[in-house]
């Protein structure tokens, strides 16, 4: 039941998380920051704006991104296979990339191509992470993971660590905010959206927060306090990293993912498999 509620309320919850993030980030920079509900104020403002678009395909893909993102979350929370949920996320990326490539704007197109580089970095790792959870729990079912007696995070610490470093890639945080890169390509795929259509994209990003942090929560097994703690740690860590690091080149990101994170996760899985 709770997962149905969570799925339905995901955009709201994601908005709160995003608002919280802005507050936390501001405090880390010794600013006051916006109010917690600022994302929702933005939401109402954007919805009230005159709808402007480049062309229908582009606007539509923004909306499709939002729907696909929500659906991926629904699959994660309501389905029983984590692996399928990982692949559902690709549909959202498809909508984003197709939309961003469809306009004649170099920033947007460059952002779309960089988005692909993000995918090549985190997607194999997501698969490895799910497989590692399977190895620990013996099932791909999210319900089995959440009723597992042990402590997954202690059995696959390296995988968890690798995933922690993958979160900035998925959520577009520095040093891996390469596809958005506000100072460089002005938001990448987002740049040409405006008004309600931008709002769709924006809300899609909030849902992605819930999607990612649900995976973090899974590392706690049946110990929900541990899961919650991990989510808080991951949240603070990602924001700290975001605040304290400069943006990397996309080549560096891909190299980091493939030369460091993936081997690390694979090593953990091999060791665990041998241990068992």
């Amino acid at each position, binding site marked *: 039941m709770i997962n149905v509620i969570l799925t339905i309320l995901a955009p709201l919850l994601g908005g709160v998380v995003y608002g919280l993030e802005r507050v936390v980030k501001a405090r880390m920079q010794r600013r006051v920051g916006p109010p917690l509900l600022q994302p929702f104020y933005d939401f109402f403002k954007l919805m009230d704006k005159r709808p402007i678009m480049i062309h229908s395909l582009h606007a539509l893909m923004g909306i499709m991104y939002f729907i696909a993102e929500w659906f991926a979350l629904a699959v994660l929370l309501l389905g029983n296979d984590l692996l399928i949920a990982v692949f559902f996320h690709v549909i959202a990326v498809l909508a984003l*990339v197709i939309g961003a490539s469809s306009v*004649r704007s170099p920033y947007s197109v460059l952002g779309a191509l960089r988005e*692909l580089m993000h995918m090549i970095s985190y*997607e*194999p790792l997501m698969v490895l992470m799910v497989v590692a959870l399977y190895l620990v729990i013996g099932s791909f079912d999210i319900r089995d993971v959440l009723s597992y007696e042990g402590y997954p995070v202690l059995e696959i610490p390296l995988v968890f660590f690798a995933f922690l470093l993958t979160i900035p890639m998925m959520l577009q945080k520095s040093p891996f905010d390469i596809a958005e890169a506000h100072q460089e390509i002005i938001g990448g795929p987002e740049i040409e959206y405006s008004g309600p259509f931008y709002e769709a994209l924006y809300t899609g990003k909030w849902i992605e927060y819930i999607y990612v942090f649900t995976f973090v929560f899974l590392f706690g097994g049946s110990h929900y306090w541990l899961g919650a703690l991990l989510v808080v740690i991951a949240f603070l860590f990602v924001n700290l990293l975001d605040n304290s690091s400069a943006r990397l080149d996309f080549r560096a990101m891909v190299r980091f993912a493939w030369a460091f994170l993936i081997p690390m996760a694979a090593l953990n899985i091999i060791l665990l498999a041998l241990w068992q």
Partner: protein
Amino acid sequence: MGTLVTLNIVLPWVAALIIFLAKKDVITNFLTFLMLPILMLTAYLAYIQPHPALIETPKWVDLAITIYDFGLLAYFFYQGVIRKNVLITVLATIQIVFLIIVLLMMNHSLTPNIYVDNITLMFYLIVAIVGVPIAIFATKYMDYGEKGKHSFVAIVVWFLGVMNFAVSVNNIEWFFALFETTTLASYVMIGFRGDKEAINNSNLALWMNQIGGIAILIALMIFVKIDGFYHFTDLLSHPENVSMAALGFLSLSALVKGAQMPFHKWLLGAMVAPTPVSAILHSATMVKIAPYLILRIAPVIKGTLLAKLLIITTGYVFVVAAIIALTQDNFKKILAYSTISLLGLMMLAAAVGTPIAVTASLILIIFHAFAKGFLFVEAGVLEKVFHVKYINQMRRLIEKAPLTLMFIFFGFLNMTFVPFGTFIGKWMMIEEVSNFLQHGSYILLILYVGAGSAFLSILYMKVLGISVRKAHGIKKTSFVKLPKTFNFVSVWYYVWLLAITVFIAPFIAEFVVPIAKSIAGEPEIYATGLTLHMYNSTLYFWQIFGALILLLLIHVLPYFVKFKADVVHPYNCGENFPRHMETWNFECLAKYEGYFVAFSIALFIMVVVLGGGLL
């Protein structure tokens, strides 16, 4: 059963002969169209017969095939001489010598020479449903300023018959004959245009595939010498004393036929031929012999060192071919590399050999056949109607060729996205391999599947990205009228793919699982309604439908949805718009291609030497 199998094999041969001799437009078009219902009917009737069936053949057929063998090899020899290609001549000579040795060694066997089981029947259906429309497509394609329409269509139709024959033989010597016949067919078709490039590439295809032929002959010699039998069924019924070396050579021939690196060049060379050639080579025939062969020997090689080395090699090709595909700019070449890559995955799954892996392999074979036939047909339409060959010419295709782009989009979705068959194949592989992980092995396999599928996804998204680019605002999309034949073939594939995807769970449970069961035992896959279950995992029907609807909306909706909002130019930070925008060519990866191929050679040698136990 015997009659139906004969019909399936002989009908295309007869039709091809009539088309070739008549050389009349009416006969060519009518007969090719007619083949579609007829072959579907015969394939279906054969499918509902009790199987597996061993079918005796008259003695003269054996003799005829032997004579045909020598004729074929003599023809290769002759081609080598007139084209002044030493390699072809030498390889043909070696084959002739080996064939004589094999024939001298061979003792009479009572095992029937034709063996029709589930896999064979599946291939009949694939050839009928996927292969024949390509021939229909070719009848119109060749009207666009190509010479020799009738002989070309005749060869395409004949090829279907050859394929049907190749998958129904039991005798490995016959299999050799048909293996080399497919080589001949591809040789003739690749060289069809007769210009310098076509000749060179057809020579390449010929000598590379001849290596596969030699490998089969060597395998045959070892089988006859050590085991005393040379039929697939005998092989499967005595798994304990089959010589590994022979199996090693047999898998080598599969790797060559399946265009696995380093023998991938011949399949790439096939793109100089008229597009239906690529369509037919990639989808229903020719390269599919490779996974077919591995599936045939899968129960015997399962768990051996040979299987493991095959897994390493094909998995490597799966990833690396996808990476190299990123660096290509020719649309047909991109498709060719993705075929090579997915063939790797099919063979990998077949070599793993557990029930679920075999199911995954079969699903990949079926869906890849449909999707690749579809994509190459669209590539042919692009080439002939819109004069587009390179992806940088695909700019703004959404305005120029909306319908064709929609079809290409759908084909690409089929190659990688969620509810479609290829995804299900990958999903099954990852879940199955996760089970093995309990023993600490196969971690490489997960990396292969995860990485390869990610690379293929970004490849397709990259190509789609460039073709959906639009000018400012909404220009009216211009619907170019396409010939009826083209539309028929496109819609045919589209509807089939859509129908199978909607009913994918019952399709897998009712059609694919029995086939896998006959190869490797009962897989733990079943369907309740439209929901697919595997072990404890479930792909719910709402997930299948949800993903399908999302993807259908993404690729169809742009043509129908027109928002009532004000249209502006892109903001673009107020800067000037560039005249053209290209896409990334991944130059940084291109320089590694040599290393990739070199490493694949090493793996290839390892398969034969270590896997075959020659050391």
